């Protein structure tokens, strides 16, 4: 053994050379282990206390907003228990600051003109009595159908002015022999990898909207809710995915003087054998308006639509359609002759109708604050980028 090794071994031996020294080392290790565990527990407890304080601040902010909006409170600031609150209304938005545990949390809520139609809180609503038992949902009276706010729609972005959509004179001929009489719009494949700004939350399509068949879903990135109002028919040939904070709703309109029909033979136009749903005789464009076709040319056999659907005309199924948002059926559901198909309202999401406005639809009730959100919430901008993340065609 070298002298260096002896010195080193002697040094270590000196540290444990008596029972008292050994006991001291063991005590130090035990106490350190205990202190570590206590520190960890205290850290977690502190984090949970902060989390609870945040939840308390949110609840207190809601309460302050209620008191202020209903006129119970007139002062701009108040105190609830340990929470100091300040409430204000600026440019059509409510702002609440809650101070608790030495931290200030800022919230905001839109100042809403009223509540949204009740159908947007349900997975499926239908008027047609014959759907009872065959479709999961709630039967409603025709008067409960959501109505468009035409004043709002007239100010909305139109598809013919939106760079992401373009007219396509031939798209209908790919599916139906005779095409359509009205303008057909498709998502522009050349622009699907760029961001397109859509002002407000509504996009109006002055014709038919086609989402061409594909095995790959069409992917939207939305930071705010978007309602696509189709003043014609909606043709969906592929699944639709949405990512981001926003929700997507497709809503079709029926021309006031046009007939509504069920396309029994599936040829895409009014023809002998089809069934009139509204009107004594057929009027309007031969392909009708307000209809929704889920599944085109038989492909794919299952559609997953992460959107809400407001169908002003007849819904036509050529595929099993799983719709994740609210479904509203003004008339019936017609299945393709070739194979039985199902419309499945999944009800994965809906709207808080008392505190959220579905853009473009008439509201009811008095003014009220919207859902209270974190002020740092990025989804508060009045404009959003509408971004289709996969090629449209």
């Amino acid at each position, binding site marked *: 053994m070298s002298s260096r090794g002896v010195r080193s071994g002697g040094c270590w031996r000196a540290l444990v*050379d*008596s*029972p*008292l020294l*050994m*006991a*001291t080392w*063991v*005590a*130090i290790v*035990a*106490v350190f*282990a*205990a*202190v570590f*565990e*206590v520190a*960890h*527990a*205290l850290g*977690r*407890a502190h984090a*949970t206390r902060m*989390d*609870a304080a945040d*939840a*308390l601040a949110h*609840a*207190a902010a*809601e*309460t302050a907003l*209620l008191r202020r*909006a*209903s006129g119970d409170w007139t002062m701009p600031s108040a*105190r*609830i*228990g*340990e*929470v100091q609150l300040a409430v204000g209304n600026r440019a059509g938005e409510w702002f609440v600051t809650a101070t608790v545990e030495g931290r200030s949390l800022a919230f905001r809520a839109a100042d809403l003109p009223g*509540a949204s139609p009740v159908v947007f809180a349900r997975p499926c609503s239908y008027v047609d009595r014959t759907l009872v038992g065959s479709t999961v949902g709630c039967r409603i009276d025709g008067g409960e159908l959501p109505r468009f706010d035409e004043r709002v729609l007239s100010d909305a972005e139109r598809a013919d002015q939106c760079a992401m959509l373009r007219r396509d004179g031939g798209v209908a001929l790919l599916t139906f022999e005779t095409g359509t009489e009205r303008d057909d719009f498709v998502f522009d494949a050349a622009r699907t990898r760029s961001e397109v700004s859509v002002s407000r939350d509504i996009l109006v399509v002055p014709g038919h909207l086609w989402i061409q068949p594909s095995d790959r879903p069409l992917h939207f990135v939305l930071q705010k809710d978007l309602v696509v109002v189709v003043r014609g028919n909606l043709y969906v040939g592929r699944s639709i995915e949405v990512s981001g904070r926003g929700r997507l709703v497709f809503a079709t309109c029926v021309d006031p003087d046009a007939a509504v029909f069920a396309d029994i033979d599936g040829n895409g136009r009014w023809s002998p054998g089809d069934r009139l749903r509204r009107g004594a005789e057929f009027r309007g464009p031969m392909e009708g308006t307000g209809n929704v076709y889920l599944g085109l040319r038989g492909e794919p056999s299952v559609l997953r639509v992460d959107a809400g659907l407001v169908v002003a005309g007849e819904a036509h199924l050529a595929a099993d359609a799983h719709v994740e948002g609210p479904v509203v059926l003004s008339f019936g559901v017609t299945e393709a002759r070739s194979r039985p198909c199902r419309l499945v309202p999944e009800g994965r999401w809906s709207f808080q109708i*008392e*505190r959220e406005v579905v853009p473009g639809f008439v509201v009811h*009730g*008095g003014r*009220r*604050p919207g859902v209270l959100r974190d002020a740092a919430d990025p989804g508060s901008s009045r404009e959003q980028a509408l971004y289709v993340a996969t090629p449209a065609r």
Partner: protein
Amino acid sequence: MSWHGSSRGEWIAAVLVLATSLTGSALLRVWAADLVSATDRRDAQVERFRADPRPSVVKDDAWTGLFPGHVLVPEKAPWGPFLAVHAAPRRVER
């Protein structure tokens, strides 16, 4: 000084140090485990509250003690049922 040459007093002191430290650390660890357990329960309660702060849930006493010094009360707002938070009334000594 060595293990063989240690006095009785030194042995007793070593045993006392060991016993005290091990008992103390065991007690601290039990306290920490209790705190972690209580934190877990409170954490789950806060998560449930965040996920579903409906007024009807208050009736289950699910949120008792969630916010010390405050009480949650179901109320009617112009837009429907609402869960309001109030400062807990101070206890009056008689």
